[in-house]
Structure formats: C-alpha cells, structure tokens
C-alpha cells in the first residue's frame, strides 16, 4: 500500500552567523509511519525540526503539508495545523500545575474552567499511565514524568504529525517501553512520527524509515529493515565500514597495584549518597554503573566535593587530605567533567579560549592571570589535539555543537594535567564519531598514568573502556566487577543480587 506523504520538505536551507546549519535538505514523512531522523550533533536535526515547527524561518526551500505548500511563522501556527512537538528541553512552565500545562496556549476559550480541565487531565494521565495529579505543580514532578506530560499534551491535541526530539534521554527502561507502545498506537491511528534519538537500538526497534544528516546535508533516506547497523553508523560518521568495525574493538587495561592514587573511606554527601568506600589506582580506568537513580553521578560529585561532603575521609597517594570544595579537589589533581554540560559545564558567552583555560587559571590564582599569548597557546594546543571545530578561539562557546562543547570542557580538564579525572556522561548526546574519539582518549590517558573514572548510561561503552566496574543500586555500592570479558549480563546479575 502506498501511503501518501503528509509532510514533504525540499531543498531546505538555513544559516546562522558563521554556521551553515542546513543545506539543501529533503525530508518526507508518510502517514502512519515512524521516521527516525539521525545524525551527529551539529548535523542539523534540531534545526530542521525548528524550521518545520516555525521556530526558525528557513532561508530557502519548500515545505508542503498534505500536498499544500505551507509557511509557518510561529510555533502556534504549526500547532494549529496539527504538528505536535515534544522538544528535548522540556517546554513546559514549572510554576503552573500539570493540568494547566496540558491546556495552556490551546484553544480559543476566554475563561478557565478548572474543574473540567482537571477532570480531563486526570483521565488522560491515567489512560497513559502517567503518575501525576492534575493539581500538582509541574516542578514537583520528576523530569521523566514532565517529559511524559509534554508528550501527553501533544497526543491530546490530535496531532497528525508528532515530533519527538530525544524523548528517551531521561526515561527509564519501562518508561521507554510505554512510550513505544504509545507511539505504535498513534502510528495505527495514522499519525506520522518524526523520532530523533541517539540510541541506535531504539531506532531499529521502532522506526520504519531512517533519514541521515551529516554536517547540515542529507546523506540519505533508508528503510530501517534494509540498513544494517554498522552501515548506519558509518553513514553518520562518514567513515568507511572497515574503520568502524575496527574501532569497536577496544581492549581495557588491567590496573597496577600499590598505593592507590585516590582513596575514599565512608564518604558521604548531602545529595543522599550512603557512605561509601572507593579507591582507584594509577593508570586505572574504572566506572560507576547501575540502574537509573542508583547514585552514580552523586558519588562522583561527592569525590569532587561538588556536593557538600557530610562525612568520611579522603587520601591522595596515601596522604590524608581535606577536600571540601571543588577547588581543594582541583589542587589535589582531580578533574571533573560534569554530567550536565549546558548547566554545569560550559560558560556559554565566554570564548572557547576562556572556557579552556578556566580551571587551570583558577588553580593558578586570582592574582596571576595568564598572558594573552599563554592563553592562546593553550587553546590552540587543545583545539588541535582534540580536533575541536570552531571558527576561532574567540568564538563564544555556545555557538559550538554539543560534541565540540564537550571537547572544550575535556580540554579544560586535560590542561590541568590531573592525576585523576572523573568523566560523568562524557559521551551523552554526542555523535558516534566523537564518542569513539573520547573513548580512545580515555584509554590513552590511562596509558600515560592518569586514573580515570568513567560514568555512562550506555553500559556498552563502559564495558569497552573500564577495567573495573563499581555497581550501584539505590544509592549505595552493591558490588564490583573486574576483568576483560565482562558483559551486561554480569552487571545485571550483581544489581539483582546485591544489596539484599
């Protein structure tokens, strides 16, 4: 059966100062299809979506909805034409109630009918299995629930096209299952779904077709069933098949023994981590793993004193030290790449150069600024060695793509020549190519004697780089695994059995 296109885009172009975000991109969506839009960060996926929904004005090209040419000038127009969007950044108002968030900005009513609104919301939430009350303030719901409410809103608006921009990054396994159920249900009703994600397994599980973008250009459109995973990855990265296969096989190293570089005893923080013990050897790569909510990041933050340390003692190279602020940790030679890149990592309006030298500069002191020349030198060095794509060292770091921003923060910590580097989700939201680069870098650091703690939601990555995995559950350590041939199953087992 030939399904008509409900959305057809041809020759779309969009540019920003210094960046050509989209160039001659085509995209088509059929009725009742789930179409994945894939590409590295900076490939143009988000821009394409924002052009469809009227957030951005395209510079050139044509868009047709059900065969009729359209030109949305605002998100409201797109919404009214049946395009529902759930953005990666939750576009809801935290100070309003759940019910209000469901209905605000819709319809032509003048007066609010609270009772009806609340009742309708209750029905909708329960039919989708979302644990929230209509009168609850949105900010009191967890992020995952907020995400689902955003999706529920789009669903309730009877959209013919649903755009989901990275909907699963904050969802747990079963929440992802629920979401997929919902998507299949919508698909059967004839809704066309555009699904943007980095999770390759999810793409194959749910999508019918895949469109790949790279560097703002269209690489191709493929049937999911006829495109092998490895080909997909290579198209996204732009590398030959052989390279990719080679890259997958990275061997973790075995640790030294001796005096550990870092040792924590009964360390606890006010983020709710139970007192834990932790050591890492010189040149070792280890990681915290566990289910969502198990406390991995909190543990890392406790080590760096990013959260207030409430108890325990810490030794560096056998010597007892006091680490109660990030600056203490830095002075002891510890570096920390935070999990929330945008919120805790980059200083958006500052230049790439300033972002790179920041940590080292703070360590040097308030009264001793680097000279312009020194700063430029540092920045150039790492732009080159990490292959950071930026128009200049002066460019504000917020103009860079996510992957390059991450590299800037990495450069910042590498510049401090830490003895111990903690990387919390360094590859999250990053394209496959950069992911591999970062993993390779971690192994190289370990070779050079730097200890690394690597935290990732993708166990695959951790299994590939870490020689020791610390398994966490419900905010305490329940086990440890080490070895060269660990599998996901091993980890799962420890989680299931541990903590009893």
């Amino acid at each position, binding site marked *: 059966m030939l399904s008509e296109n409900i959305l057809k885009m041809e020759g779309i*172009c*969009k*540019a*920003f*100062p*210094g*960046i*050509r*975000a*989209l*160039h*001659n991109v085509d995209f088509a969506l059929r009725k009742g299809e789930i179409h994945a839009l894939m590409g590295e960060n*900076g490939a*143009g996926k*988000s*821009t394409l979506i*924002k052009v469809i929904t009227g*957030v*951005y*004005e*395209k*510079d*050139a090209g044509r868009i047709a909805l059900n065969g009729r040419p359209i*030109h949305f000038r605002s998100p409201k127009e797109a919404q009214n034409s049946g395009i529902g969007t759930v953005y990666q950044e939750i576009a809801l108002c935290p100070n309003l109630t759940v019910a209000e968030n469901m209905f605000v900005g819709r319809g032509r009513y003048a007066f609010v009918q609270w009772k009806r609104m609340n009742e309708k919301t209750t029905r909708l939430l329960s039919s989708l299995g979302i644990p929230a009350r209509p009168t609850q303030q949105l900010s009191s719901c967890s992020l995952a629930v907020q995400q689902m409410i955003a999706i529920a809103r789009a669903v309730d608006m009877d959209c013919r096209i649903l755009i989901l921009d990275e909907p699963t990054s904050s969802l747990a396994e079963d929440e992802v299952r629920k979401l997929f159920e919902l998507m299949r249900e919508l698909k059967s009703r004839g809704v066309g779904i555009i699904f943007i994600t980095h999770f390759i397994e999810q793409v194959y599980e749910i999508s019918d077709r895949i469109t790949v973008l790279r560097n703002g250009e269209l690489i191709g459109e493929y049937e999911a069933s006829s495109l092998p995973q490895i080909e997909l990855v290579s198209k996204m990265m732009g590398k030959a098949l052989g390279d990719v296969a080679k890259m997958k096989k990275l061997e973790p190293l075995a640790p030294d023994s001796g005096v550990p570089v870092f040792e924590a005893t009964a360390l606890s923080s006010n983020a709710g981590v139970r007192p834990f013990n932790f050591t890492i050897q010189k040149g070792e790569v280890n990681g915290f793993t566990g289910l969502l909510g198990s406390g991995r990041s909190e543990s890392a933050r406790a080590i*760096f004193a*990013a959260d207030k340390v409430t108890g325990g003692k810490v030794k560096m190279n056998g010597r007892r030290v006091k680490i109660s*602020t*990030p*600056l203490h940790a*830095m002075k002891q030679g510890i570096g*920390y790449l*935070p999990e929330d890149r*945008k*919120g*805790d*990592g*980059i*200083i*958006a*309006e*500052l230049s790439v150069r*300033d972002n790179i030298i*920041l*940590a080292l*500069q*703070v*360590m040097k*002191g*308030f*009264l*001793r*600024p680097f000279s312009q020349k020194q700063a430029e030198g540092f920045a150039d060095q790492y732009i080159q060695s990490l292959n950071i794509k930026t128009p*200049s060292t*002066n460019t504000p770091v*917020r*103009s860079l*793509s*996510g992957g390059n921003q991450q590299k800037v923060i990495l450069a*910042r910590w590498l510049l401090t020549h830490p003895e111990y580097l903690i990387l919390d989700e360094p590859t999250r939201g990053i394209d496959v190519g950069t992911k591999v680069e970062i993993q390779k870098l971690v192994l190289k650091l370990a070779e050079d004697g730097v200890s690394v703690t690597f935290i990732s939601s993708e166990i695959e990555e951790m299994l590939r780089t870490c020689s020791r995995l610390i398994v966490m559950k419900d905010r305490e350590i329940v086990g440890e695994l080490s070895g060269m041939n660990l599998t996901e199953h091993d980890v799962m087992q420890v989680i299931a059995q541990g903590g009893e």
Partner: protein
Amino acid sequence: MRRLKAQVSHLFLPLSVLVILIIINLIKGADYFSITVVKGALYGNIPNILFGASELVILSIGMALVTAASQGQDIGIGAGATITSAVFVLFVLNAGEVTLLTILAGFLVSCLAGLVIGVFNGILVSVFKVQPMVATLILFMGGRSIAFMIDGRLSPILANDISNQIGTVIPGVPLQTPIILTAVFIAIVAVVLKTTNLRLYVESVGINPSAARLNGIDPKKIIFLTFLIMGICTAVAGFIAVNKAGRHDSVNLLKFIMMDAILAVAIGGNSLGGGKFSITGSIIGAYTIEMLNRTLLRLIDVDPATIPAFKAVFIIILMVVASPVVMDFAAKALRWVRFRADSGTVPETGAPDAAVVSDPDTPAKKEV
C-alpha cells in the same frame, strides 16, 4: 587586529551617541570645543563635562561590576554615597585642624563606611540570594535618613581650603581636581583588571554560577567582592561630591544618580542581565549621559525640572534604535537594498542563497 575590531564594535552604541550629541552641540554653536583659561585652569564645555561626570563615572564602574556578577542593579548608591560622605564630614569637622592628613584620614574612614555598606548588601545578595535591586532597595529607603542622623540632623558646611581645592582646582594644576581624581581611579581599575582575574571570575559567575563553582570559583565570594568594590566606589564618589558642594545635604546629594549609573552601564553596551561587561563602555556611557544632561540644558532654555522628560525621549529613541528587533529589521532591509542594487530583481522570500550567512548583527538563535 581582529581583537581590536571586536572590542571597538561593542562600543558602537555609546560612541555613536556621543558623536550625535557632539554634532548637535556643534550645530548650536561651533565654539563647542572652545576652552578658556581662568586662573591657570582649563574651562569649557568639554572640561565641564569631565568635571561634572566624575562621580557618575566612578559609580558606573562599580555598577557594571555588580550588574555583571549578580545580574541585577544596585539602586542604593546615591544613599550609600550620602552616608559615606556624612561620615567623612563628621570626621573632618571633629578633627580639629583641617590638614591634608585629616582629609586623607577622613577619606579612608569614609571608604571604611563604604565597605560596611558593601558588606551589608553583599551578604543579602550572595548569602541570602536576594535580588540586587530588592536588596539595595533597603538602603535606598533608609540610607538618607541614616546619613541625616550622622549629620546631627543638620546640613553641615565643609568650608576649608583643601576641600575647596579638591572640589574645584588646585592652584597651578591646569585640570580641575575631580577630573584628575577620576582619571586616577580609572587607572587603578585598569591596573586591577589587568593584573588579576577579576574579569574572568566575574563574567563566569555572572553567566553560569554553578559552572563557575565547579571550576573552583566561589560565586558567593565574587559577588561579595563586587559589592565591596561598589562600596569603595560610593565612598570615592561621595567624597568628590561633598567637596564639590561644600556642604552635606543628605536629601539632595547625588539624588537620582543610580538612574544615570544604570543608564550609563546600559548605554555602554553591558547587558543588564549580567555576564560579560565592559568598563570602557560604562565610562563612555557615563560621560555620554553627562553630555546629554548638559546638552539638554544648553539647547532648551526651559526649566531644569523639565530636563528629565527630554532625557526620557532621548533614551527611548536610543533604546529603540539599538533594540534587537529594529537592528534585525535594519539588517534585512540593508540586504534587500544591496541585493536589489546588485541584480536588479527582488529576491524570493528569505535569503536568495543558502551560502549567504545571516547578518552578523542578527542576535543568534543558535542551535544548542
């Protein structure tokens, strides 16, 4: 070279306003730049502007720092300067003989008072996380009354030779003293910015306090520091003002200066929402506001009380022209005209060629 160009381009706003004002003045009388020498000192329109803007320049520098780090404005600076100058006057009048040393000591004591004010505001903003405008509202409301109390409920007169010289001219020096004092202050600030990481720390804290924290900077300390600096600024400004006036009038001293200071900072190209800041811009902005004040007085022979209205209109026009929406529109119009001139045809909706990058003036709606 590129760096110089970048620096100058963000001074575009205050400089262009300055130029417009100069042109308007020149139209009124071509002798605008004339300088007369009275008793060995230079007077004239330009020196008078430099003289009159002294306090404003100093306070604008402090305001720029406070705004950058804590994303808000300090509206109590007028009251603050009134308090510090009251302390100064109290000290001097009770010190017996008035020598250079007593004046100096009095100045230092008033700086101490300024620091106390800085501590008060700083704690509210950095520890209690109160918005700066709200926190400084307190001093605004109660500050002048405190100063009045320090004055002993009078309007004490400060009449001695040294004060006179500080307020006007030191014999033998061609420039009026406040101008020199301001220049020295600016020089000190420049040195501080060059030899410390103040700029980097303040901008980091202003843009993203939690990220700054994770890099070892303590945002509380930096915000606190900016308020301390502002405290010093209020002391210096109060010192100059009271010596100029010759008496301490706690009701009218530097009244409404906080408005002018905020304006100076905004015109200087600084975002009132914090982050990156430009001291040069703020300084130029301050002199621009002063020139605006005087231009209005000079051109329009009406009651000085009406001046605020004209200032308002001027500011509104200025902000409209500089607003992102208007600049965007102007850029698009310019492109349209240019394209029309080139090819003789009107382009399709949107840019004709994808490779043509949007005008640099367009505020970036960047993909993040």
